[in-house]
């Protein structure tokens, strides 16, 4: 897929590198659904604080970080033209450390009195994420002429650094190893960098290239591709400073929300200007994701100036989760069929399954319907219900099945089809 400037598809890492992360993310999603289901039926009875921490971190680390790091291992050679040498071993290390780290962290949140678990979680997660950052950033800084995407990806990864530092700090505080004077200050800095820096900026940066290429739309305006990501980064750094100095951050938060609102509006506008509009589930995921991003940022904007109810605050968080998941699903249903076909085709399998045989577009559409209903129910109830939890399990379960199906297609072709030299 696709760089316009200097990629090599041959440098794309093996399929296993990406699939390992995607499968794990799906499993974390299924486990989250099951956990919330048992909580809603009072089968497990964790406090609402523990439930909140487990939910947020399963989603942000187990699901989102796994998807995003897996996609980056695949997309960096393609979107940025950089190559991570021996990607299989390195990806395995990041994947192993991250998976263990997330599991230990979730247990720590469930069994709050165990200091050792907090220490181990911070060690595993710190190692996993800093190692991934080192692998990717050291290649990205070598690029002489950055595209808007490669620059944005570098900035998004940079935003992961304070996210991890402050996250580790919070974990060690929870474990009783250190003491923070103002826990809520550090928490706000941590999630601002995580949500608005790392997750949002990565999505924004990737969209600059893939929206135009995947959907044949007009390009984003130059003002957005050139300045948006850097401006958000500067505002986030300023916001952190203001929080630490205990200055009001209203204007900064509102400006960030306004900039993201402008971006999401332009993205929707671009998607409606497709040259060949077809009923494609990945477009629906993008449109739904952007609508949710607008909802989340609108509430953030209002909340910057007025006192809003906790229900409205929850609505904003759920809309943000829905936004991030929608875009991740859109990307997966593009990446996995293409990679499976490409690797087989490049290996010389003449009868390599076409992309729609790997994951049929109908399967992606089914996932969109499930995902749409899940998010709408979650937004309407603004709480975890047994139905919402069940739908989360089904949504990730369906994705898991589709990924396993793609892997089976891949291995079947390798085992049973004839190879040619070309």
């Amino acid at each position, binding site marked *: *897929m*696709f*760089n316009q400037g200097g990629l*090599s598809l041959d440098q794309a890492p093996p399929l296993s590198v990406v699939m390992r992360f995607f499968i794990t993310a799906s499993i974390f999603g299924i486990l989250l659904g099951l956990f919330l289901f048992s909580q809603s039926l009072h089968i497990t009875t964790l406090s609402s604080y523990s439930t909140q921490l487990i939910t947020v971190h399963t989603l942000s680390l187990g699901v989102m970080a796994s998807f995003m790091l897996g996609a980056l291992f695949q997309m960096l050679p393609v979107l940025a033209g950089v190559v991570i040498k021996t990607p299989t071993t390195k990806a395995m290390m990041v994947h192993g450390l991250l998976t263990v780290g997330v599991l230990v962290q979730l247990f720590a949140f469930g069994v709050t009195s165990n200091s050792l678990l907090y220490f181990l979680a911070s060690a595993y997660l710190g190692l996993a994420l800093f190692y991934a950052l080192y692998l990717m950033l050291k290649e990205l800084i070598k690029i002489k002429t950055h595209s808007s995407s490669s620059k944005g990806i570098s900035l998004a990864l940079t935003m992961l650094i304070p996210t991890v530092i402050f996250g580790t700090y919070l974990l060690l505080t929870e474990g009783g190893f250190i003491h923070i004077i103002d826990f809520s200050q550090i928490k706000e800095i941590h999630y601002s960098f995580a949500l608005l820096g790392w997750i949002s900026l990565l999505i924004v940066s990737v969209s600059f290239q893939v929206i135009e290429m995947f959907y044949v739309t007009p390009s984003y305006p130059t003002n957005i591709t050139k300045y948006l990501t850097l401006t958000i980064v500067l505002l986030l750094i300023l916001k952190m400073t203001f929080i630490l100095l205990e200055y009001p951050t209203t204007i900064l938060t509102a400006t960030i929300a306004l900039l993201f609102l402008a971006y999401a509006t332009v993205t929707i506008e671009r998607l409606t200007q497709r040259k060949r509009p077809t009923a494609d589930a990945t477009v629906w995921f993008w449109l739904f994701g952007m609508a949710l991003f607008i909802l989340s940022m609108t509430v953030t904007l209002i909340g910057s100036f007025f006192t809003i109810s906790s229900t409205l605050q929850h609505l904003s968080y759920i809309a943000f989760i829905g936004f991030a998941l929608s875009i991740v699903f859109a990307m997966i249903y593009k990446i996995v069929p293409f990679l499976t076909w490409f690797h087989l085709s490049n290996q010389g399998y003449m009868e390599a399954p*076409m992309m729609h045989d790997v994951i049929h577009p109908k399967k992606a559409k089914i996932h969109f319907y499930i995902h749409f209903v899940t998010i709408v129910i979650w937004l309407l109830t603004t709480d975890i219900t047994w139905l919402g939890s069940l739908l989360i399990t089904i949504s990730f379960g369906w994705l898991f099945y589709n990924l396993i199906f793609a892997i089976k297609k891949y291995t079947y072709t390798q085992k049973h089809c004839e190879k040619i030299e070309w």
Partner: protein
Amino acid sequence: MKKFFLDAREMAHPEPFQISLKYLKEMSNEDYFYMLNTKEPIPLLELAHDKGFKFLTHQDSNKNWHIVISKNSQQNLEELLDV
């Protein structure tokens, strides 16, 4: 000499890549592949290069890219350009 032609100017990724790869596999030594695109398809060109194909790219005054790919190393690709 058979011309495999693809106008990819309004095609979404990765469809042009998928069709191009199919054509490159089907082409005999005497055939050539001619593609029209809005961007220079670097991934395809690198792959073609790796597989021993010869290629030529040219951007016309309308900013469209003309790509000619052949297996035959003796083939004068400039002669095949239609601009």
